[in-house]
């Protein structure tokens, strides 16, 4: 009977007037899933791909023009290339990986843990405080990122060691849970001590599907969700990050990266080529060696950018052409109940359900798509619990971009590991929720107050994404 009640609710709401991008006030009772159109499974609109297998994160857009298939394949060749093995030795000498696919396994997050060790590999962003720059400066010897791979004649910069301390807690119903608080240590420093006051920010790889769609969301739609001064008094603010675009030289809305510190996908790709793989390009023509790393500087001295504009464009295009996997189990009663609870708990205040993309002239497949990424792409203060203490652009040391939730239910299937939050400390959806602090604290407490069955329903909804 209960199942039919939910189905009835669906039918009743399918034709109801919809308010795009509107979430009920957190804590408000929601008797039915708001605004459920019939195409709820189409997380990527017309670009959605229907695959829940290990290939779910790497398929071409569901509406890809057939003539564009070869461009996608060409881009993947570049994405999967081992740049360190190339005959000309283009990569490095200081790197974090040999190629994009090394970290973004199956276009997702890290490789399966049995392949890499007990924990997801991390890279560490570096900076030092500076009075003249709120975001700080690069670490003077090691640069903006710790490169843990070197060559025979250019030592690696160091290694990251993570240890965990259990943090125990209980839900309102008395069920215990355990989180793990990470501590990071940089060992085997190859070029002397780190500067005093150095700020470290560990990061795991992000999944790569749907980036073309996120790039196609109009700026004004993101700005419309910002509420930096929390004028509506819901405890959630949200503000955009802004970074200088290498193209325009102007500050633009950031939307990519854990702190939304990259304004465009091409710039994100170019920075990753530069900082992770040591590959220069027209956007990032300077090598990632610092003046104090003489051996490194000698190796890369006076060379034209390793990557051409064409390579950057093709790699970026590849990422734009990866489709979003469809939601699963949309009409399962537990999942539907979980979606209501997701709204009630206030999760949707940041994990915005829906956007409509704008017009994308060079890839019309991405145009005017109603997408459901469950992110507002804005920065939110997540409290000391999740702080890295490292500003980035206009983001403070406690702010993070709301990560998209679409597709995360397939993490275990695709990557054979589940590590969430910026540093992978969370081993499950529950742990990720329980780490929410700052603006997310109220939602966390509402989650903790739910019964076991309700918590499981909410998680079932997240797994369906």
């Amino acid at each position, binding site marked *: 009977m209960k199942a039919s009640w939910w189905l009835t609710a669906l039918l009743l709401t399918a034709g109801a007037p919809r308010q795009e991008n509107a979430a009920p006030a957190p804590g408000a009772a929601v008797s039915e899933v708001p605004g459920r159109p019939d195409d709820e499974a189409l997380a990527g609109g017309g670009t959605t791909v229907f695959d829940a297998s290990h*290939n779910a994160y790497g398929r071409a*857009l569901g509406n890809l023009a057939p*003539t564009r298939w070869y461009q996608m394949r060409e881009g993947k060749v570049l994405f999967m290339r*081992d740049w360190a093995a190339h005959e000309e030795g283009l990569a490095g000498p200081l790197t974090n990986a040999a190629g994009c696919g090394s970290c973004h396994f199956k276009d997702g997050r890290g490789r399966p843990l049995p392949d890499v060790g007990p924990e997801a590999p991390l890279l560490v962003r570096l900076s030092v405080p500076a009075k003249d720059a709120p975001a700080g400066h690069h670490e003077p010897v090691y640069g903006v990122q710790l490169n843990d791979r070197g060559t025979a004649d250019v030592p690696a910069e160091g290694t990251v060691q993570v240890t965990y301390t259990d943090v125990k807690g209980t839900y309102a119903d008395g069920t215990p849970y355990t989180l793990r608080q990470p501590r990071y240590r940089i060992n085997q420093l190859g070029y002397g001590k780190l500067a005093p006051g150095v700020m470290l920010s560990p990061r795991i790889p992000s999944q790569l599907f749907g980036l073309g769609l996120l790039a196609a969301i109009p700026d004004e739609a993101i700005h419309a969700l910002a509420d930096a001064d929390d004028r509506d008094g819901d405890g959630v603010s949200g503000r955009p990050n802004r970074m200088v675009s290498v193209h325009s030289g102007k500050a633009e809305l950031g939307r990519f990266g854990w702190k939304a510190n990259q304004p465009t996908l091409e710039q994100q790709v170019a920075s990753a080529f530069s900082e992770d793989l040591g590959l220069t390009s027209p956007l990032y023509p300077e090598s990632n060696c610092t003046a104090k790393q003489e051996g490194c500087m000698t190796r890369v001295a006076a060379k034209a950018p390793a990557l051409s504009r064409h390579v950057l464009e093709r790699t970026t295009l590849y990422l734009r052409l990866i489709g979003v996997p469809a939601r699963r189990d949309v009409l399962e009663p537990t999942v539907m109940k979980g979606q209501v609870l997701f709204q009630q708990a206030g999760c949707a205040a940041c994990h915005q359900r829906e956007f409509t993309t704008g017009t994308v002239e060079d890839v019309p497949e991405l145009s005017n798509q109603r997408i459901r990424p469950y992110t507002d792409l804005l920065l939110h203060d997540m409290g000391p619990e999740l702080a890295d203490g490292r500003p980035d652009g206009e983001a403070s040391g406690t702010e993070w971009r709301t990560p998209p939730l679409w597709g995360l239910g397939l993490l275990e299937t695709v990557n054979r590991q589940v590590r969430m939050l910026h540093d992978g400390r969370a081993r499950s959806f529950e742990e990720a929720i329980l780490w929410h602090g700052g603006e997310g604290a109220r939602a966390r407490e509402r989650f903790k107050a739910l019964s076991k069955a309700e918590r499981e329903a909410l998680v079932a909804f997240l797994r369906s994404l």
Partner: protein
Amino acid sequence: MRSSRRVGTALWAAVFSLALPLSQAHAAENCVEFQGLQHCGLGAVKVSGSEKGVRIDSQEKEPSGKGGVAIHTPPAAAWTAETQSDGAQRNFFTAYAEDVPVSTSTVNSSRESTSYSATFTGSGDATTYSVLAYYNGRLQAAVGGIRSGDTGAVGMMLPNPGWTPNCRPRTQTYAQCESACYANGYSNCNYCNTPCSLTVGFASAQLSSACLWQYTVAEPGVRLPNGQTVRADQIVLQEEISGPSNYPYLNFNRIDVQTTARSTVITGESLVPAGK
């Protein structure tokens, strides 16, 4: 179509290296190296090697088809192998890319016929494939839209004097071969002196990421899913790639060969590495 047959000589443009070092990935026991490739036992088999090839002996009373070898390759664009074994049997081939199975093929040999089928995953459950039948290098017929998993071709002995086989089917003894030869009215029965080997190939096409399986056919006649029967000595089962939702496989790095035959010898093998 012709281009898909030149898999033995094609050079590909990409290099891809994600596979763990072979020495790290495979235990030494029950592995032999042949033609530069590691062949490691699967299931209850004994694997032994010599200059002539890799011998797979089932240790089961009734081989289940799970026994065989996993052949580990560097990132590859094409692979071919020649296998010799006797008797009715089923052979199962699985190709792996990015560490997971991406395509399979089944060859089911009985006294009267051999059926060939394949599965592909480029388009998920909706993937379809084409079968192309060749004789002396020339395309005789092609059928498309075959659902992944369905039979693509059946090799048959037909009573046609002009369609004399080239070799004795593996499922026939010499005496059975002679008997079938006379019954079918073949012009001569010398082919019974030469046992057929199963030549199988797998490739990932560069431009389209389409996977394909290629077989030499022992029987002179091949019946296709549309009912047509043609003379053929080679068939290709090729994935159909349309673009939307497809998965862009670039190469493969492992082929599993499993069989219900009691003994199989892989006598010839070649590999085309994925290009740089």
